């Protein structure tokens, strides 16, 4: 019988014979992981929503009206804008379209626009950005451009929004880190408790001549098994719940595109599995330490 197969046999035998503690540990791992995973998903989703909101920050570039720029100038400007890597897309709104929009706005009180002769409205570019945080930089580039009259992007609102979203992100990040620590503590706590119940067993092993590692390996394998198994079940539950919930939320949120693909399933899965395995192993290894001193 090889060493490794002996350790494996020991570990699985012990998991079976101490089934009560195995179940207790599994339950703790599972529950902690479900909460951690659920919150991870929630944070990812919220974070995607925040990005969505940030995307609403656009730059409107009003062109001069007196005289209006020539088509060449407009084309040149559009080409320049689209050559900037910060820009996601830009739409040209012609003078006519601007007027149509205005008419649409006032269709209840057409009297207001009755006296209008000609078209006093400027043409404009609506520029949306890859990273909305670059709005200041991009806006500044239009300064001094001959065709541009004015650049508007709601600087104050944008700044406030960014403060808010970054605070929210910090908060969520803090929450995840805290919850991660909590999950780690809860799991290692339970593993240590279940090792504590087998304190006498470990002492006997030492007294009949087992080395520390000979005792440790089966315990570590047990810890890893419990951690991994609990995490796998938790991952399944979290991902199933997530896809069910997201479906429902999306239905009720038609005015906002909920990014269904925002949750990186793979990384959530990997994070949970890694936490399970590492804490399982470390919890066992560290929990044993005090009993190996004999």
């Amino acid at each position: 019988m090889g060493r490794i197969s002996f350790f494996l046999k020991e570990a699985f035998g012990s998991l079976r014979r101490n089934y009560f503690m195995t179940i207790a540990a599994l339950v703790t791992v599972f529950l902690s992981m479900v909460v951690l995973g659920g919150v991870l998903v929630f944070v990812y989703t919220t974070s995607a929503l925040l990005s969505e909101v940030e995307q609403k920050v656009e730059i409107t570039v009003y062109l001069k009206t007196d005289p209006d720029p020539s088509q060449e100038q407009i084309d040149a400007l559009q080409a320049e804008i689209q050559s900037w890597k910060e820009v996601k897309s830009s739409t040209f709104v012609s003078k006519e379209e601007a007027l149509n929009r205005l008419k649409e706005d006032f269709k209840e009180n057409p009297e207001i626009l009755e006296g209008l002769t000609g078209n006093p409205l400027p043409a404009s570019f609506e520029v949306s950005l890859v990273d909305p945080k670059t709005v200041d930089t991009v806006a500044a580039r239009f300064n001094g451009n001959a065709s541009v009259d004015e650049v508007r992007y709601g600087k104050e609102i944008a700044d406030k929004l960014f403060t808010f979203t970054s605070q929210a992100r910090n908060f969520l990040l803090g929450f995840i880190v805290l919850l991660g620590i909590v999950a780690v503590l809860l799991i290692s706590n339970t593993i240590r408790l279940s090792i504590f119940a087998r304190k006498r067993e470990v002492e006997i092993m030492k007294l009949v001549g087992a080395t520390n590692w000979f005792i440790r390996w089966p315990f570590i394998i047990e810890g890893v098994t419990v951690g991994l198994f609990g995490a796998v079940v938790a991952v399944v539950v979290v991902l199933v719940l997530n896809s069910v919930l997201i479906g429902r939320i999306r239905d009720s949120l038609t005015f906002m595109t909920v990014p269904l693909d925002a949750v990186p399933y793979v990384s959530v899965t990997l994070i949970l599995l890694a936490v399970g395995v590492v804490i399982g192993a470390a919890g066992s290894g560290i929990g044993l330490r005090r009993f190996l001193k004999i």
Partner: protein
Amino acid sequence: MIKFEDVTKIYPPSTVGLERVTLHIEKGEFVFLVGPSGSGKSTFIRLLIKELEPDRGRVSVGGRDLATLRRWKIPYLRRNIGCVFQDFKLLPNKTALENVMYALLVTGNANHDSKKKALEILSLVGLAHKEDSFPNQMSGGEQQRVSIARAFVNHPPLLIADEPTGNLDPETSMGIMQLLYRINKTGTTVLMATHDREMVDRMRRRVIALEEGKVVRDQKRGGYGED
């Protein structure tokens, strides 16, 4: 084989375990350790396997000073000392057979006949039919015999037994004693703490008597009580 030099062990705060014990046990000897309840027999044994450290003096086993023995080397010391514990110290989640095999497996060089070996030893103590029983499924005497089997199975050069017959009927005790005797004949040093007057008186071997932690008698061919 065993050397105690002025060894004192005080349990905190002030219970005397052993007091100024100096003695010498040669390789191949068969020694009885006797004394009233609480006189320090188990303490003596626990010092030998470095389960305890003496407060003063020096314990050496097989020429090795235990005080200077590095922590990671302790398991190797213990593999060379078969020990029958007064409270058996069986692993509760292992069967009789697994308990005995464990002592073989810890050495790392266990091979395919470790199971055969363990079964042989179990029959030797009359427990072949209990190989699959867990400790809590065995009688007191049966547990004690599993503990004895585990101590033997390695053929260690030193065998220590702390009242190995306390839970055994006279007949079974006799069987165990004969086993110990045969083992001793093959050169193994045997140290046995016991209260079995009959046995000690019959064997006429070296007797070390403790009282309140002190050696009060050390006789080459003694009986349980003073002659």
